[in-house]
């Protein structure tokens, strides 16, 4: 699946997005955050406070307990500050 990052999540990870292949035991958005955090210190830094991280699956807001199965694009970003 494709992962995309925005705002300070993007800055900390150092890229706008990438292809990821989480193992089968990573079932939810929250578990995906945990798995990404272990990929390196830039990821650990980006996701150091998982509670503040917002996520979207295929461009729809989701909570961390939602299953990622079937999603083509997952996005991670801080709380929004538009408007």
């Amino acid at each position, binding site marked *: 699946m494709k992962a*995309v990052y*925005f705002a300070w999540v993007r800055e900390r990870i150092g890229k706008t997005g990438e292809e990821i292949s989480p193992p089968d035991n990573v079932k939810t958005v929250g578990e995906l955050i945990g798995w990404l955090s272990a990929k390196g210190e830039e990821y650990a830094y980006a996701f150091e406070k998982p509670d503040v991280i917002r996520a*979207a699956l295929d*461009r729809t*807001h989701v909570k961390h307990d939602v299953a990622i199965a079937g999603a083509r694009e997952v996005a991670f970003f801080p709380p*929004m*500050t*538009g*408007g």
Partner: protein
Amino acid sequence: MAVIRIQREDFNAAAEVAALTAGRTDIGAVVTFTGLCRAESGKLAALELEHYAGMAEEEIARVAAEAEARWPLQGVVAIHRYGKMAPGENIVLVVTASSHRVAAFEAAEFLMDYLKTRAPFWKKEHLVDGSSGDWVEAKDMDDRAMERWG
């Protein structure tokens, strides 16, 4: 059907209102909300708005559809800019048209509350001393403003 646009260039509120009301005699109330970039007491050189290009338009369309379901509206416009904006420049425009003023006001407030907390945009400050400032932090106040809509 709501008019939704995500764009780098500025918008023209008067032109949007004119397009919404042209030739109609059933609209009694038009509310516009324009959000502008503030200088924050001279500290700010610019705001840079990052957005999730794929999602921004879809999410705002969902919010506009929700407003149209809740209130009897004859027109809705929501335009959100991205990129770098100097103090005094426009950032966001919402226009609502209805037969009655209360519906127009409430729908415009609802749209702004939801845009603030659900539209995938992020503001980064650029300071007048040339340094890159912080990412603007989301306000609890904005979350609470959204919660009033149930």
